[in-house]
């Protein structure tokens, strides 16, 4: 066993010397130049998420991108609301809702569906609870839809549940614009 290994090594070394000698001889007889071209192909596989206005919802700011904005406008338990904002009144809160669309495109994948999860970038304003498709959003990521198809606008309903308590008593600050950011992640199944 030991002898055979050593023989193999010796044979490999001889081959390498022979190849080097042949190359040297060739270079001396016929000068040449060589070059190599390495072609790199980046496979563009991946997902892309785009947010769109829903035909029945409010018009999004920056619709058609992955960073849009949705303005409910001025909301109250009673009185008029912005177009395409609906309201339901409860005993100690009211809920305003509007739909918007998410479109996730897949490229170069065998996956046929994705899981949509969402979370709040920071805690919701006092007196306000945000729900996406009836899932109460928190700063912890939660699954909104486990098996959604690619390539079409999927309607999701965003709701803001607003306490009717006075500001300072658990209710929201009134008269100033309240802002929350929802972070979405679509993951190929």
């Amino acid at each position: 066993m030991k002898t055979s290994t050593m023989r193999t090594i010796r044979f490999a070394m001889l081959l390498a010397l022979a190849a080097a000698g042949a190359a040297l001889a060739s270079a001396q007889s016929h000068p040449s130049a060589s070059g190599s071209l390495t072609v790199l192909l980046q496979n563009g596989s991946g997902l892309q998420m785009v947010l769109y206005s829903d035909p029945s919802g409010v018009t999004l700011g920056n619709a058609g991108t992955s960073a849009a904005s949705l303005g409910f406008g001025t909301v109250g338990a009673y009185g008029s609301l912005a177009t395409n904002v609906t309201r339901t009144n409860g005993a100690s809160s009211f809920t305003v809702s509007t739909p918007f669309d998410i479109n996730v495109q897949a490229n170069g994948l065998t996956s046929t569906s994705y899981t949509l999860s969402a979370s709040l970038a920071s805690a919701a304003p006092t007196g306000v609870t945000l729900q996406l498709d009836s899932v109460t959003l928190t700063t912890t990521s939660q699954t909104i839809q486990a098996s959604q198809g690619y390539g079409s606008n999927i309607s999701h309903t965003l709701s803001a549940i607003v306490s009717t308590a006075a500001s300072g008593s658990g209710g929201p600050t009134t008269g100033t614009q309240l802002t929350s950011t929802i972070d979405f992640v679509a993951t190929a199944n």
Partner: protein
Amino acid sequence: MHMQTKLISRYWLLACAALLLPLTATQALAAANPSATGTLTVTATVTSSIQLLFNTGSGGVTLTGANTNAATLAFGSLSAYGTAPSNVTISTTSTLCSNCFVASTPISLVVNQADGSSSNFTLTAYASAPSNGEVLAVGSSGALSTSSGTPTTITSSGAYGSGGNTLPVYLGIPTATGNNTGLSDTINFVATAN
């Protein structure tokens, strides 16, 4: 010689591992599910608001459109003498108007408040112009103004909440009104948070 063989074997192992490591890492990355992200910035401005609703008062005529802000109170057929409709009181001695008789029934006026800190509200009302000299009144206000610009104050300390505020509605009808004359009047209420 034995030591040399062992060393060579170790070198081979290391070389193989070095070659395989990047390959394994690439495969692991390729196996991870790709994902995409998006952000939606949500804005809203909450405003305090109040709501006015009419309900049938205790012992009063049943309102049509109760629990809304546009109800109808139908007194029915009224006469100065004779039997008054159910839940309607007739007075021929009221000071609301002269040469008239007065029908009355209580209603419940509910004002709800949301996202506000007002402790009560002021209620004003005005009536439509009379067609046959009739006079309207609510609570103890006396005859209602018929001008939207100068409504009559019904109360300056109305209570919020579903318990409501019981208010009698008075309709004074001149005794000279013709038989079977139909009367239709509208009272416009405005509640303002104090």
